[in-house]
């Protein structure tokens, strides 16, 4: 238990700093940035205490918001995917997740790709809708979601493959 808490705290801090100090400054082709901090929400262990998890999702979004002066858009998007995560899990991994047997970092790459894609696209869609906040710019919202989303998915898959624990 204790080890898990330390692990999650470290991951939280590392991902926030990585996001605000490096990834927010990439600006690929002008304005495309990956938002890899979503990995914290995606990789959080499946536990019974959902309230803690929802609160932590909110907190990581809020941290990113404070650093990048964006009001509450990251917090809103993060708390939403945090709340809706069981749906994504069920969709990607089927029923096995309910027995709490899966380790996301050790799962099959196809399932992991589906899971990340779902969680990241939903998160980015809410994020950019709130950031742009205008119905007349829906094409631009979808464009940003797609491009940023692909960028984030690539980095997430790479990151979890490189730093994930080896299967025994």
């Amino acid at each position: 238990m204790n080890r898990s808490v330390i692990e999650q705290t470290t991951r939280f801090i590392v991902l926030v700093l990585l996001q605000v100090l490096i990834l927010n400054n990439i600006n690929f082709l002008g304005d495309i940035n990956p938002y890899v901090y979503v990995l914290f929400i995606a990789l959080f262990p499946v536990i019974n205490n959902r309230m803690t998890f929802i609160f932590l999702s909110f907190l990581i979004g809020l941290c990113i918001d404070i650093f990048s002066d964006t009001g509450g858009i990251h917090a809103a998007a993060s708390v939403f995917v945090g709340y809706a995560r069981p749906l994504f899990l069920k969709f990607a991994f089927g029923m096995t997740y309910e027995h709490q047997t899966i380790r996301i970092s050790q799962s099959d790459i196809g399932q992991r790709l589906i899971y990340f894609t779902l969680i990241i696209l939903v998160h980015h869609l809410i994020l950019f809708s709130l950031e742009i906040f205008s119905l007349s710019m829906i094409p631009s919202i979808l464009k940003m979601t797609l491009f940023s989303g692909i960028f984030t998915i690539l980095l997430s898959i790479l990151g979890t493959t490189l730093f994930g624990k080896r299967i025994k």
Partner: protein
Amino acid sequence: MQQLLNFFIRNKNVLFFLFLFFIAIGLTIQSHSYHKSKFLHSANGFTGGIYNATNGISQFFSLKDENAILLEENNRLKELLLSRNYSTPNLSVGDSIKLRSSTVIKNSYALINNYIILNKGEKDSIAPDLGVMTSNGIVGVIDKVSNNYARVISILNTTSSVNAKLQNSNHFGELKWDGKSAEIVQLVDLPKQAVFKKGDTISTSGRSIIFPKGIPIGSIEAFELDETENFYNIDVRLFNDMTNLGHAHIILNKNKAEIEQLEANNE
């Protein structure tokens, strides 16, 4: 009562989620309105400190470029000094304007509402509503100040609005940003009587106490009449490279308090 309590316990996850979600939406909405983001901004000691520390590292690598820019500015100022022949009396703003140099420790330009953090704050007698410029042109207006840091609403912010005019006449309009390109801003509400051509310079108008008259902003890239056919909408290409800001000057106006008092008396 018992049932109500049961309802809350049964749905505590949903309720907690909705509660947090609405807090986040609330923060978003109040950040969309100018001058209202009271609670969360990155000009506080903690986030400012982290940005300051990392900026120290990245600054080291751009020292060469920074030097070149300063050298260029020096040359320009020297030329100006020489061509003035020393004897010309000092016109316009005179001594009422003071510049204070500062370092940009955080800059963004890819969002819709961009902010910049400077490493000067209340301690250096910086206050909200002061203008910020570089040697190439204007950057934005300070809106939040903490002890050591100041947050600037960049001109690349859809809520920003600065008064600007044509360099060679007194027709003025309002400088806005449509959130698209970091190189182009829009000058709107310029009367159609104004005469100009592509490539003309746009500068600050001096109609507010924030920016003194005549600071260059950019050149005219394209223009068209708006729907009412009474005003021009102009695309202005900025002289400043907003994606590469190192140092910035904060404009202090000695007469600010006096002018504000005068305006307050009027009301």
